[in-house]
């Protein structure tokens, strides 16, 4: 897949050029290329798309910008280099004669996401791209997604879209002024320009963030130049020496910096303001009139005599200076200290503070002492520290006059303030100072944050008698008023308020009282409040929560309450609960924790979503939980489990083997209970009723009659669309009936990150948590999905995280619990078409086999088995269809299930190997999967050429954006390949020989594999696949002797044995 990039082409200032910068869009893709040695000019980037392909790509993505020209640029990129010996030895003479000689130094540019090789150098590469003129570039950048990972967009595009958003914000807030940029020499024009002013504290902080996070690929380009000095818009073929002079082999130094980012920002702001500005010259003198015309023109060129332009430049600069200073690495900072005990005057110290990290400060004395040297603040270099400090103090003087007293000496380090001045500083001047770019550090208790407000300090514990499981139960608690980190009583507060001084000292700390503080505190005290366990859970969920409008500054829980809170907020791993009596098999440690967690939330009557990664055993944990209820005599009424049809069989089989004491029944098929009476009858002896999403919708009236003890939904993403009928029915049935119902959802998708799907899920689990759907959309979904608003996302996560447990197979704690290979049997049913085709084939062939001679029989039996296997895969395969028709998925139970699992695996970003023994099936499947996921799915089979094979394997292993699904035929792909990037292996059909399957599995599981490998084996239940599987398991010891290395052993079965094996069991 190609990856789109964008990098800034700085303006080349020549007398003739338009002098405008441009955004260069380019793309690279994975392909095989030979390392290139340096030539006279930077070599052509071998992985980049040419102009036409790039246009095609942009059109396909609906991202073709306006205002583009074909362009070529020289990009500095990290490159994989190698020193190899020259292939042919040339004499010196020959070398001199050759323009591009054989170099023994070669390299290739790296691509994003590729593993970094040991030897890596920065090389210049010639890249074709499309140059977007600045105003169109800003429009284009506004259209890019602001959040999320997009596998076809380079990460730097998101940086650009964020920068553009900042530019919009500056324009919206009016933080821009027009300026004049003087000519750089004879023949160059003077230009009018809009510049953003980054004097405000938040903008300055943002500048530091943007420069610290700048992905260097965004600024690594130089325009490719024709030897005439003009920027080229095509690849030129000119005399090499002239090209070399114009485009030397030179790299940009890897560096970022605030100046660079500020310039980019300026270019973006300038472009869009110039585009939108409508000049109006009525009543203006010629000077202002010329300037205004240029401010709205494309190129910004001002046509004025030099002296006039210079006058305008000086005046406009002086004008700007009154608002904002220069961008520098550090700023002046004023630190306020409270008076010493018994004294009246406050101390104000001057210091120099790093913009990038306000905690990096040095006192003024060091700035004075460093003279002309560069001052190092941590890792930050500050040039001319004395001037930086002085300029800041000069600005400070304009908004906080008392400073003047402190600047009487040559090297002032601080001064004293009267209480009144200190109050002005705390209350108003500090904000103004920060606005003009001067740092202000106030004592913590006065810093204006939440902590400096009047609030509460709370201590609480569960009641003696409580078990801590009931919401709404009251707690034992004490509270105190708290402000600026110190506690105080109501009486003390009254006393302080009576002093009528805005800044007062209490218990050694200086605090600022606000007018309503006393009133709020009195109100709180007189209300004599209680707090409940609910309050405790809410108050400890996030910072800054309030109780009756007073912020809670400290919440100290007693040991028992603390235990409940920690478990609830998942601050510690859930307590383990070992496998209950009657559970056959073993739980892994993390599964015991999962069981403990389900039990914990159940006691709170809270819905739980178990979202473990595929393959970690959600089914087992759920079954263990039900068995746990049963063993504790708590399972009194039936539980309803809703799942996609394709996994119902799987549930039944798993329950049979792990929890044989649970009575499980399917509510499915034409023979299912059709009325209240028969349903109630069947449920008398049933613990767990299985049904499908389809039926829950159809039989909703019948199913809601039952007083379920709990509702479980498997593959919970099935209800992601809140308005779909099956989602509504599912949520309806989860509402409490006469008594409470537990609600459990199982899913393997990363639910927390799928904001749009969360509401329906939470409405099923715990309805009130996220409010009504409209509220949810406005409050969370829109800001998060559209703008990637991280603070809303954090809030949302805090709301839902108590109810979601998700463990990944890559978690350290999980890896140690897992074997290196995890084998999973996927039980699937057959579609109606499969069933009838299967029965017909068996009926037709068995007869023929019994009549056949001994010699023929062997072959006929194997033929039948093969045919049946094909039917289990897909009827189309058995019927030798060549194309993927409509309803293709629905015709096969196996394909339906395969798609569900692949969906989950692919959305988790994992890579997959699919093995089949039928090449025809591989081709059909390839066509289907490519269409389904709109991506390339390579298929390696017997007739793949050696070169193609290597290419497929290399791409799968190396290409950072390579295919996630790799289809292989068992025989061609089963040996010799190294495909360790895969963490899932699927055996779609069975080769009834474990040795062959294992060999194929080992393609992914090899030495060097750090992932755990999940091996999925599909078995169509009730069919020959299931029965032979059982046979192999039963005879596992004998197996190797009987089975040998092929499937031949099956040919020697007797007719009766065969009949038993192949007959489809009615289910």
């Amino acid at each position, binding site marked *: 897949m190609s990856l789109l990039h964008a990098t800034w082409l700085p303006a080349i200032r020549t007398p003739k050029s338009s002098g405008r910068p441009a955004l260069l869009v380019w793309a690279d893709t994975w392909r095989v290329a030979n390392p290139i040695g340096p030539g006279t000019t930077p070599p052509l980037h071998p992985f980049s798309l040419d102009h036409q392909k790039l246009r095609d790509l942009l059109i396909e993505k609906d991202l073709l910008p306006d205002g583009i020209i074909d362009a070529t640029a020289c990009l500095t990129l990290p490159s994989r280099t190698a020193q190899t010996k020259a292939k042919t030895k040339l004499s010196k003479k020959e070398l001199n004669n050759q323009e591009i000689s054989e170099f023994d130094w070669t390299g290739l540019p790296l691509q994003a996401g590729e593993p970094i090789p040991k030897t890596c150098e920065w090389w210049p590469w010639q890249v074709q791209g499309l140059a977007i003129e600045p105003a169109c570039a800003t429009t284009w950048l506004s259209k890019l997604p602001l959040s999320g990972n997009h596998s076809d967009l380079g990460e730097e595009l998101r940086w650009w879209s964020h920068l553009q958003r900042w530019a919009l914000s500056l324009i919206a807030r009016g933080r821009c002024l027009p300026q004049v940029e003087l000519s750089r020499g004879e023949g160059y024009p003077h230009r009018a320009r809009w510049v953003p002013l980054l004097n405000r504290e938040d903008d300055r902080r943002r500048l530091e963030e943007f420069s610290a996070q700048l992905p260097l690929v965004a600024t690594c380009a130089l325009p490719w130049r024709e030897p005439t000095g003009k920027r080229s818009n095509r690849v030129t073929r000119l005399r090499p020496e002239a090209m070399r002079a114009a485009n030397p082999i030179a790299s940009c130094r890897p560096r970022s910096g605030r100046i660079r980012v500020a310039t980019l920002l300026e270019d973006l702001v300038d472009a869009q303001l110039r585009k939108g500005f*409508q000049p109006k010259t009525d009543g203006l003198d010629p000077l*202002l009139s010329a300037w205004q015309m240029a401010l709205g023109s494309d190129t910004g060129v001002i046509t004025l005599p030099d002296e006039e332009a210079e006058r305008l430049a000086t*005046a406009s600069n002086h004008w700007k200076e009154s608002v904002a200073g220069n961008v520098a690495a550090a700023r002046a900072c004023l630190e306020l200290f409270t008076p010493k005990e018994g004294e009246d005057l406050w101390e104000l110290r001057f210091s120099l503070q790093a913009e990038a990290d306000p905690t990096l400060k040095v006192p003024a004395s060091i700035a004075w002492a460093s003279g002309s040297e560069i001052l190092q603040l941590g890792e930050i270099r500050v040039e001319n520290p004395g001037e930086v400090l002085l300029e800041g103090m000069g600005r400070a003087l304009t908004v906080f006059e008392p400073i003047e007293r402190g600047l009487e000496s040559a090297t002032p380090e601080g001064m004293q303030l009267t209480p009144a001045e200190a109050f002005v500083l705390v209350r108003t001047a500090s904000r103004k100072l920060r606005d003009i770019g001067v740092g202000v550090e106030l004592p913590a208790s006065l810093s204006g944050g939440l902590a400096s407000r009047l609030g509460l300090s709370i201590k609480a514990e569960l009641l003696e008698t409580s078990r801590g499981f009931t919401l709404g139960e009251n707690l034992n608690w004490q509270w105190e008023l708290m402000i600026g980190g110190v506690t105080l009583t109501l009486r003390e507060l009254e006393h302080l308020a009576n002093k009528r001084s805005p800044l007062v000292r209490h218990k050694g700390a200086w605090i600022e009282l606000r007018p309503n503080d006393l009133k709020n505190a009195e109100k709180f005290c007189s209300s004599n409040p209680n707090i409940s366990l609910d309050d405790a859970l809410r108050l400890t969920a996030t910072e800054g929560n309030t109780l009756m409008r007073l912020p809670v500054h400290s919440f100290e829980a007693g040991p028992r309450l603390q235990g409940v809170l920690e478990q609830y907020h998942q601050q510690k791993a859930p307590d383990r609960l070992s496998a209950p009596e009657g559970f056959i098999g073993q739980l892994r440690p993390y599964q015991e924790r999962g069981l403990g967690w389900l039990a914990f939330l159940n006691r709170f009557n809270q819905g739980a979503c178990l979202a473990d990664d595929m393959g970690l055993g959600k089914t087992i944990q759920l079954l263990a939980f039900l068995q746990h209820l049963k063993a504790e005599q708590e399972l009194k009424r039936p539980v309803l489990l809703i799942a996609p049809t394709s996994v119902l069989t799987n549930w039944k089989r798993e329950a049979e083997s792990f929890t044989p004491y649970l009575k499980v029944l399917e509510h499915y098929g034409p023979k299912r209970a059709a009325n209240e009476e028969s349903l109630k009858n069947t449920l008398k002896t049933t613990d767990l009723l299985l049904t499908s999403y389809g039926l829950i919708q159809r039989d909703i009236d019948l199913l809601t009659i039952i007083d379920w003890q709990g509702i479980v939904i498997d593959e919970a993403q099935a209800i992601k669309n809140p308005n779909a009928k099956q989602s509504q029915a599912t949520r309806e049935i989860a509402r409490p009936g006469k008594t409470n119902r537990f609600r459990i959802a199982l899913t393997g998708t990363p639910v927390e990150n799928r904001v749009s799907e969360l509401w329906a899920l939470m409405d099923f689990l715990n309805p009130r948590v996220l409010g009504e759907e409209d509220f949810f959309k406005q409050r969370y979904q829109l800001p998060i999905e559209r703008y990637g608003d991280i603070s809303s996302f954090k809030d949302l996560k805090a709301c839902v995280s108590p109810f979601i447990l998700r463990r990944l197979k890559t978690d350290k704690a999980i890896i140690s619990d897992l074997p290196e290979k995890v084998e999973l049997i996927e039980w699937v049913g057959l579609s109606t078409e499969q069933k009838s085709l299967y029965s017909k084939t068996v009926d037709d062939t068995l007869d023929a086999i019994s009549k056949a001679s001994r010699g023929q029989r062997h072959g006929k039996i194997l033929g039948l088995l093969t045919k049946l296997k094909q039917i289990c895969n897909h009827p189309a395969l058995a019927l030798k269809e060549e194309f993927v028709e409509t309803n293709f998925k629905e015709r096969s139970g196996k394909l339906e299930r395969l798609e569900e699992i692949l969906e989950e695996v692919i959305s988790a970003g994992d890579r997959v190997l699919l093995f089949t023994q039928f090449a025809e099936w591989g081709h059909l499947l390839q066509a289907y999967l490519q269409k389904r996921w709109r991506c390339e799915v390579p298929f390696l089979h017997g007739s793949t050429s050696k070169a193609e094979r290597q290419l497929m394997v290399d791409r799968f292993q190396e290409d950072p954006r390579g295919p996630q699904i790799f289809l292989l035929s068992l025989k061609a792909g089963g040996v010799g390949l190294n495909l360790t990037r895969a963490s899932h292996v699927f055996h779609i059909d069975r080769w009834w020989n474990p040795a062959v399957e294992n060999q194929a599995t080992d393609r992914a599981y090899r030495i060097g594999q750090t992932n755990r490998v999940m091996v999925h084996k599909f078995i169509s239940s009730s069919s020959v696949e299931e029965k032979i599987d059982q046979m192999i398991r039963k005879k596992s010891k004998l197996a190797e002797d009987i089975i040998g290395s092929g499937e031949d052993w099956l040919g020697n079965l007797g007719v009766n044995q065969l009949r038993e094996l192949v007959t489809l069991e009615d289910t």
Partner: protein
Amino acid sequence: MINTSGSNNEITTALGKQGLSEQPWWVEQWMELINSYRFKKRLERAWTYAREGNVTSIRFEGRRVHARVQGTDEDPYKVKLWLDVLNDEDWEYVLEALTQKAKWSAQLLAGIMPSDIERAFAASGRRLFPFKLQEVKSECSCPDKANPCKHISAIYFLMGDRFSEDPFVLFQLRGRTRSKLLKDLAEQRRKVLSKIVKEKQENNKENNEQKKNYKSLIKSHPAVSDPSLWWKYSANLNAELVVITPAMEGDTALDSAGEIPLAEEPKFPDARHIFWKHIEEQGQVLAQRAMLQAMSAGE
């Protein structure tokens, strides 16, 4: 415009909407200087000249002001104005005095003319501002023998306004450009400081060592050791950029900056205000547009 009021028959020019009180102090001082001139009639005529746009150009070239005034003659008269330049020795004194007070450097660096700057010049026995109009030297190519003639006087009026474009023009007339002045000032300060520093260093060797350590800390860009950073950007949109909001009333950069301090062209008395107003209006339109664009992002 001429404003004759009071018994002193004092002339002031009304510059800008807010009137004289809004003028920087050095412009006021210049106007006072002019008003101290005895021949009021000539001043009035000069003001009419200036107002009617007879002054076609004023240029600050090095230490002199060159101007052209359209008089009765076909070709404009050439006017030159200059002040006595301070010699290097004088400047030494001034610079030394300026470093005595951090405030002066601080304000000059921030682009502000310190109101008590004359005190620093007093150290050299010289002045920045001329004390009397006679100190302003001038020449005019007109046949009028009187100095200042009305052409020169017309320039006087317009000069005050030009000072507000760039207060450092005064320093220039006295022999130092802004950049030269700031550079000299920084050097002078370092000279003074190095003495203090040396004294301190002897008491404080730790500081010295610390500095050495700082130097060894100069690091190359992190992408040099981890080239994958070349492509990496994992940050979320800054929370403050999620919702794009307009400026609060009167809180734009344009509001803080006010009208541009560009000398008024007498024929276009309201030009600066019109310019400001138009930028403001357009700024609001563009701000609206930016907010709309931001709102539809990611759709």
